[in-house]
């Protein structure tokens, strides 16, 4: 879970206390704004995100950690834009078979910058919101879709269980690897074929044990009355002044962006 989403970081801040629904909506809206943003708008968004991150009282180092797993992806993205954007060639690279353009450099930079902001926005959400609050917020936000036949509660429970059981599976995988190592399997330094075979020998029993676990979990949930009529929650959330304030600021931002879009 930790490297998928970033883990909740305990701290006492305004951002932590915001309603999870407000935080989810804000993150989604900000992400949409960032995706199509021009360079100046990106800079403005960066400033805004920086300010909010400062408000969370979580050290900036923690946010940087969220980047480690996506660095290869970013590098690829940058290279693709660098090499395949037509425009004015840059002299130092002209000598080789590849051409690098000024526009390519700019676009690559901008795209990576945008995705970087997205990662910051996503980690802002997951660092300051308990997973269960996230799921609760998601459930409440999806509730209007019930009319269209979307089982909002089941969707929320699915997300929840995925988060909850991810570490369990990692541990199970470790156990299996150890059990196979104990019987003499050496994978490190082997050929590709050997590695593929080793992966297969791990995945099949893992899938098997996963299905068995899922079976027990389903029985345990059923035994506790899941799926027999409407559900309620222990937690209740109500929007306070700061939630409305946050939503208002967000709307202002969106309106400003829209106006800029019309002018351009």
């Amino acid at each position, binding site marked *: 879970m930790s490297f998928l989403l970033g883990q909740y970081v305990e701290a006492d801040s305004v951002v932590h206390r915001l309603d999870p629904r407000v935080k989810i909506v804000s993150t989604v809206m900000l992400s949409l704004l960032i995706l199509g943003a021009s360079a100046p708008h990106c800079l403005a968004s960066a400033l805004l995100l920086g300010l909010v991150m400062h408000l969370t009282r979580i050290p900036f180092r923690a946010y940087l950690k969220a980047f480690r797993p996506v660095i290869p992806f970013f590098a690829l993205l940058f290279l693709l834009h660098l090499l395949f954007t037509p425009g004015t060639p840059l002299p130092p690279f002209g000598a080789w078979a590849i051409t690098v353009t000024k526009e390519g450099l700019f676009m690559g930079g901008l795209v990576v910058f945008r995705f970087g902001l997205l990662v910051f926005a996503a980690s802002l959400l997951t660092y300051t919101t308990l997973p269960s609050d996230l799921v609760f917020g998601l459930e409440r936000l999806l509730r209007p879709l019930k009319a269209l036949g979307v089982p909002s509660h089941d969707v929320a429970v699915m997300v929840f269980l995925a988060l909850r059981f991810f570490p369990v599976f990692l541990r199970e995988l470790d156990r299996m690897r150890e059990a196979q190592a104990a019987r003499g399997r050496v994978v490190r330094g082997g050929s590709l074929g050997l590695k593929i075979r080793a992966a297969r020998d791990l995945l099949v029993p893992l899938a098997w044990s996963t299905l068995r676990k899922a079976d027990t979990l389903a029985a345990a949930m059923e035994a506790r009355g899941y799926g027999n009529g409407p559900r309620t929650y*222990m937690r209740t959330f109500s929007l306070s002044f700061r939630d409305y304030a946050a939503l208002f600021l967000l709307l202002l931002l969106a309106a400003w962006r829209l106006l800029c879009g019309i002018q351009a």
Partner: protein
Amino acid sequence: MIRVENLVYRYGSQGDPVLRGIDLEIKRGEYLAVIGPNGCGKTTLVKHLNGLLRPSEGTVLVDGMDTSEGRSLREIRRKVGMVFQNPEVQIVGMTVEEDVAFGPGNLGLPPEEIRRRVEEAISFVGLETHARRSPHDLSSGEQQLLAVAGVLAMAPDCIILDEPTTYLDPAGTRKVLDVVARLHLQGVTLVHITHYMDEIVETDRVVVMDRGRIALSGSPPEVFSEQDILLDLGLEIPSVTAFMKKLRQMGVPVDPRVLTVEDACREITRLLERRP
């Protein structure tokens, strides 16, 4: 409170039945143990008691409600709770208190009532200091206590324990059994499946299962006096009982029908004091 009549169960429509005609009545407040070798149908039987499985033939009635009728299922699951063998797999919450809140939430209770029940259940099993922690940080014993609390929060009349101590260390086992004993004192009906003979000496009645049938049924001393049948089924008798039987075979005139260390001590001191 639970009545099982001529219960037959088979997986699919053909094939050998796993349960071959079970008749069983469980009284309110009774503490019942179910023992038997692996594959004898213990778990299959108890899964019928709260409607997780529906009989192929025969009926299961919980306070008069038929488990094969879908509309009573919610009430049946509230009345009859279940604790499974593997503590890790039955936990659905991200924190201890949220996991306990899962059951009452499924009953559709108002938030204040859920909160009240969660706190009560957590303090009953003694996990107050862990209420806001992740279940992953708990020991297996504590996780099993959490599973018990999750069932308790539904205010059940009966709790089924399916080998609840198999995955636990001795300390965890002791804590779970202690909670079980307190539940019995509070009048909760208990059905306890186990492989450990020492765990059933405190029960009111023992049901021994073999290949889908009830082979023996009676109070713990009655059942353990049938040592031959038990050994045939690959089961054991409590080590204290075995010890006393051996003593008697060696010519020491003790009563072998004791089950606990305390009773054995009393029996032996009685014998020693009678001597000059």
